[in-house]
């Protein structure tokens, strides 16, 4: 196969994003790019986002010009691996192979119920690849303990009644799977991610791998699924057959699910309606619409339960004050960072709350990425995330928070910050709110609210003393966890937060 490069596609920058407008290229043809380079500005309902690239190589073609609005997954540019000459690739869809000469070829056995470890071997699936390096780090970055069971039932997410579940006969599924050609045999993907993509008839071509060296992780598939319009499997097949972009189709099923009837019959190939025709132009109105869509879906689909837990913070605040007193303002840490750290570390111990629900399926997540609700001046809200927040020390977490808030308010978040987090922390404590009763952001399964930090009566022994306290709250998805698990999580957050060890 000739080396036609890797595609850089319009990423999904949030569960509710269906399309984005390319505002500007930050790189030009011939530029050498590496992982993490910002190569484009993309506008969504949430503002203009700096989009990083997750491939390494030379930009050989820009496929979309600035000002164009394209659906998530659309190829934006082509990148050639640097030094790539000619690599034979394996087209057997069940073995994963890589063709970029500077990366590792690995062969991964594909199973449907998955223990997600990647076997990296210098194997028969490797052909002309001349350097096999990094195998240790690859296996490290893609191995995880998540397991996904893939059933033959595709369900449209809906909890109202059982009858809303769309069942597909086995033969449908077979047809469906068979039609997933891994058009790019070079995509490397973990078995769990492959199984999930297959179960949802998701083409691997449209996926962007966030694992090391662009390996597609379970999370990447979840993100792509979350960004996909809800449609029945039959409608999806029909859309694919017709070449119709689902995001341009209005669904008339329950909750807007796209039905087969919503698509034109096979004979007439419909021209997709321009996506911008019905959308409000005003950014404020668009953001309002995006928030309305996400919260309406949340309140419609997610059976929330709510818990609160008040925590006494004198020891932690005294420690923080002492630390800040000896540091210049640039190195000061706000109590908000303490709260984030406690939530992130508690979440690591409660993986049941670190999951997304996608199409009615619970998908465990691999890392603790903390969403932070940031209110914008002039109204509106975004919930960007801090990747691997549980691994950050306090200073690093504070720096990440500062950057996140600044970028969110300036409207120039990075794409990596736009990925939906494990769960979100929302604080209304600055305005005197006692307790936040929050709304879960789909596809997340929980959200933590933070009330006002204030001096309140607190019983110590036999005495009632004035002490700084705040009330944490948790809203969680009852389809995924019960109050008991939520209460244990919240107690752990409170316990970590109350500690004086910074």
């Amino acid at each position, binding site marked *: 196969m000739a080396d036609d490069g890797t595609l850089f596609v319009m990423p999904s920058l949030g569960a509710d994003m269906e399309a984005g407008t390319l505002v500007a290229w930050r790189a030009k043809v011939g530029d050498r790019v590496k992982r993490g380079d910002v190569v484009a500005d993309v506008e969504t309902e949430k503002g203009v986002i700096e989009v990083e690239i997750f491939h390494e190589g030379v930009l050989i073609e820009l496929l979309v010009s600035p000002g164009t609005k394209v659906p998530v997954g659309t190829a934006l540019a082509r990148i050639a691996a640097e030094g790539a000459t000619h690599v034979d690739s394996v087209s057997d869809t069940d073995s994963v192979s890589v063709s970029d000469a500077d990366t590792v070829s690995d062969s991964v056995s594909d199973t449907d119920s998955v223990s997600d470890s990647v076997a990296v071997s210098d194997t028969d699936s490797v052909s002309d690849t001349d350097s096999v390096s990094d195998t240790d780090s690859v296996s490290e970055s893609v191995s995880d303990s998540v397991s996904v069971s893939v059933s033959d039932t595709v369900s449209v997410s809906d909890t109202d009644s059982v009858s809303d579940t769309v069942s597909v006969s086995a033969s449908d599924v077979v047809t469906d799977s068979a039609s997933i050609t891994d058009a790019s045999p070079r995509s490397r993907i973990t078995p769990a991610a492959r199984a999930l993509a297959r179960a949802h008839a998701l083409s691997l071509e449209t996926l962007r791998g966030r694992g090391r060296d662009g390996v597609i992780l379970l999370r990447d598939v979840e993100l792509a699924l979350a960004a996909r319009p809800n449609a029945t499997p039959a409608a999806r097949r029909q859309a694919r057959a017709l070449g119709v972009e689902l995001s341009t189709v209005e669904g008339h099923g329950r909750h807007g699910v796209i039905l087969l009837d919503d698509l034109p019959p096979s004979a007439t190939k419909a021209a997709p309606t321009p996506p911008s025709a019905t959308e409000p132009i005003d950014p404020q109105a668009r953001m309002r619409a995006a928030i309305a869509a996400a919260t309406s879906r949340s309140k419609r689909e997610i059976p929330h339960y709510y818990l609160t837990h008040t925590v006494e913070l004198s020891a932690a605040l005294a420690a923080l004050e002492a630390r800040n007193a000896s540091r*210049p303002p640039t190195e000061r840490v706000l109590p908000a960072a303490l709260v984030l750290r406690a939530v992130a570390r508690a979440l690591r111990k409660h993986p049941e709350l670190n999951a997304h629900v996608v199409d009615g399926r619970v998908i465990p997540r691999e890392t603790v990425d903390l969403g932070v609700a940031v209110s914008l001046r002039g109204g509106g809200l975004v919930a960007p995330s801090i990747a691997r927040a549980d691994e950050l020390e306090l200073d690093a977490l504070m720096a990440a*928070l500062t950057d996140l808030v600044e970028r969110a308010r300036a409207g120039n978040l990075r794409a990596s910050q736009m990925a939906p987090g494990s769960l979100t922390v929302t604080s209304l404590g*600055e305005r005197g709110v006692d307790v936040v009763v929050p709304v879960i952001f789909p596809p997340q399964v929980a959200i933590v609210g933070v009330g006002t930090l204030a001096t309140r009566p607190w019983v110590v022994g036999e005495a009632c003393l004035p002490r700084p306290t705040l009330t944490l709250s948790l809203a969680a998805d009852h389809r995924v966890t019960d109050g008991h698990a939520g209460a244990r999580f919240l107690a752990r957050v409170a316990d970590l937060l109350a500690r004086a060890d910074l």
Partner: protein
Amino acid sequence: MNHDALVSLLRRRLDDIVPGQADSLDLDDDFRDELDLDSMDVLKLVRALHEELKVDVPDTEVGRLRTLRDFASFLEARVG
């Protein structure tokens, strides 16, 4: 730097944080409430003042300085 100059400086730095609203602040307005500032915004202001005036507003003081008048007075006592 006198009190009036410090008030002007505070307005400029607040304008960086919330564009277009600092000029209309009265000296005795609670500027956090008026401009809807949160603790991150206030820290940003403190950092900017530290860089410009080399004056540190400690954590323990920040919460007490609610108005432009008070804030400027605090700075005036510490700037040459």
